């Protein structure tokens, strides 16, 4: 089955090829997470303890320690119910809202846009897989992709607005700019690149707004570029960059029962 992108018609990517790329990205992500969990697991299992002699960090140690902290009672009296933490602190991100409504607005746009686009891509993937294994659906993958185009646009713009606010803050607010280090720049740069490349790829393909007069024949390579950098930066790169916060912060909030 021909996939939607490629360098030329002759070099059009197949579904299998894009799946292989995806699998590589997932493997890199999993390897990175394993290394990260091992790094975290090099820590001790409780307050004021020491690591066991000769024992190396393990993912199991980390997960056990984390779970124990999640389930133990807090002596500080700050603990909130886990469901409240999940909904208000992790999904709604109220700790950011309390500190800065603008920064919360920016982050919730990026978070909402990013996660929804990720979920929609997952849905599309599920439909394609269903079709591939021969299960009959009342619609074709092509029809489904067309249905998704509107929510994709909406959440794409939501993401874009968030990313632009983040970029403007980092570039033009002096206290933010002066405190920024490469660790911060790489994250916002990559998110910007992935977002813009998505709009460009779609614009060139459809000729709407984002085509900038570019030849529609470059739509497949543009889509390929977007697909590849999305896989690299949105999946494989997570454990090796500031992206790790999307995993570490929810885990920290749960472990600390919402924090003080």
């Amino acid at each position, binding site marked *: 089955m021909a996939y939607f992108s490629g360098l030329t018609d002759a070099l059009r990517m197949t579904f299998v090829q894009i799946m292989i790329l995806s699998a590589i990205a997932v493997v890199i992500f999993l390897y*990175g997470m394993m*290394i*990260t969990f*091992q*790094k*975290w*697991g*090099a*820590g*001790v*299992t*409780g*307050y*004021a*303890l*020491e*690591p066991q002699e000769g024992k190396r*960090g393990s993912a199991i*140690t*980390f997960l056990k*320690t*984390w779970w124990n*902290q999640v389930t133990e009672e807090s*002596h*500080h*009296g*700050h603990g909130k119910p886990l469901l409240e933490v999940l909904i208000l*602190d992790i999904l709604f*991100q109220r*700790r*950011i809202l309390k*500190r*800065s409504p603008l*920064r919360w607005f920016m982050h919730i746009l990026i978070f909402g846009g990013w996660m929804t686009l990720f979920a929609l891509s997952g849905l599309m993937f599920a439909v394609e897989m269903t079709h591939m294994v021969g299960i009959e659906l009342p619609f074709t993958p092509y029809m489904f992709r067309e249905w998704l185009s509107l929510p994709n646009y909406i959440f794409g713009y939501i993401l874009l607005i968030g990313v632009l606010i983040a970029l403007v803050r980092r570039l033009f607010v002096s*206290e*933010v700019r002066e*405190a920024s*280090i490469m*660790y*911060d720049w790489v994250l916002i740069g990559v998110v910007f690149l992935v977002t813009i490349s998505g709009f460009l790829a779609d614009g060139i393909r459809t000729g709407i707004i984002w085509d900038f007069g570019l030849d529609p024949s470059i739509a497949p390579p543009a889509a390929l570029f977007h697909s590849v950098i999305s896989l690299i930066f949105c999946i494989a790169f997570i454990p*090796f960059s*500031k992206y*790790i*916060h999307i995993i*570490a*912060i929810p*885990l*920290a*909030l749960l*472990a*600390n029962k*919402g*924090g*003080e």
Partner: protein
Amino acid sequence: MAKREPSISTKNLTAVQLMELDSCVRCGECVKWCPTYAASGEKPGLAPRDKILRWRQYMNKSYGLKAKLFGPQEIPDEELQEFKDDVHGCTTCGICSTVCEAGINTVELWESMRANLVKKGIGPYGKQNMFPKLIGQYHNPYMKDQKDRLAWVPEDVKIENKADIVYFTGCTAGYNQLALAFATSRVLNKLGVKFAMLGEDEWCCGSALIRTGQAHINNVPYELAKHNVEAIQKRGAKKVLFACAGCFRAAKVDWPRLLGKELPFEVVHVSEFLAGMIKEDKIKWVKPVNKTVTYHDPCHLGRHVGVFDAPRYVLSHIPGVKFVEMDRVKEFQRCCGAGGGVKAGIPDLALGVAESRVKDAVETNADILSSCCPFCKRNLMDGRDALNVDMVVEDVIELVAEALGLETK
């Protein structure tokens, strides 16, 4: 060739704390609020997010992907020494934790980093290294004779041998800030509350050792906690009253942790106890205190364990008191600067923070700056004197004593 060992270990740092290093997104909220960063003239190394960044880099150099593939990268000793100075330039007030968007438990992170470095032979800071020896040997940090624990007790104060309630004085109130001890004991007597004291069986609570990363040295804090708990049990106490925020926090949080079990008695701050008595209408005030009073939340009473309302409730019920709030109060309070070993280790920094807090109080036009901790009182008085401000610094219990017509001398 032998494989190079990592320059840092993970001693004392829990797996969750190592994860917390990666959850910092460097939003900078902690930097805006940190009292020692502000009082130091914004020394970059004191910024909480900078400390997290540096330890994360140390972890990656020692245990990250590159370290796994090519071996750990050396971290120069001078760098770790500088880090030690910075991690001790913190009062462990916990404001960085309150404002942290990732919910990082920073206080325990700093304490773990301190302990980790002390175990490596780096730190603590300055005179702080005397704590284990002094407290281990004298059972108080002031080198006072344990036999003198009750030397301050005036003739008019009645103490039971055994009672349901024990008043745990604390070293600072028992040896140096006697007004607090006078006031607490007389107030309890006046209210008809029978209480016992531990006398020479009262040992230091261990807070100074834990906060400065020296809990492991000769296991002193464990011994202190074990001894104190047993001594309290011998007095038959069901409830232990603390007028010192540092001791209260240690008993509430650190003792159960050190002993690995819940305490067999209730740990109560005297302000909570008095608030309860006021609610039950058991306090008959004798005279008004016609003053404007503001209140400084001790970090160890407020942010660390969440007692914010009881002292305010007591103050607002003292007849004649006009209670006013400072700008930064409750969970967003500015630290007095004394905690976390800073008063002993870096007194100039402690004084700088105290001056900032006294300025907060001056803005309210209050006559009295009150608090609920002898250590806060000491440092706020130093800040007041350095600024040459005409303001009385008094503990809430002293004001209660005054309103009950009692002496605090």
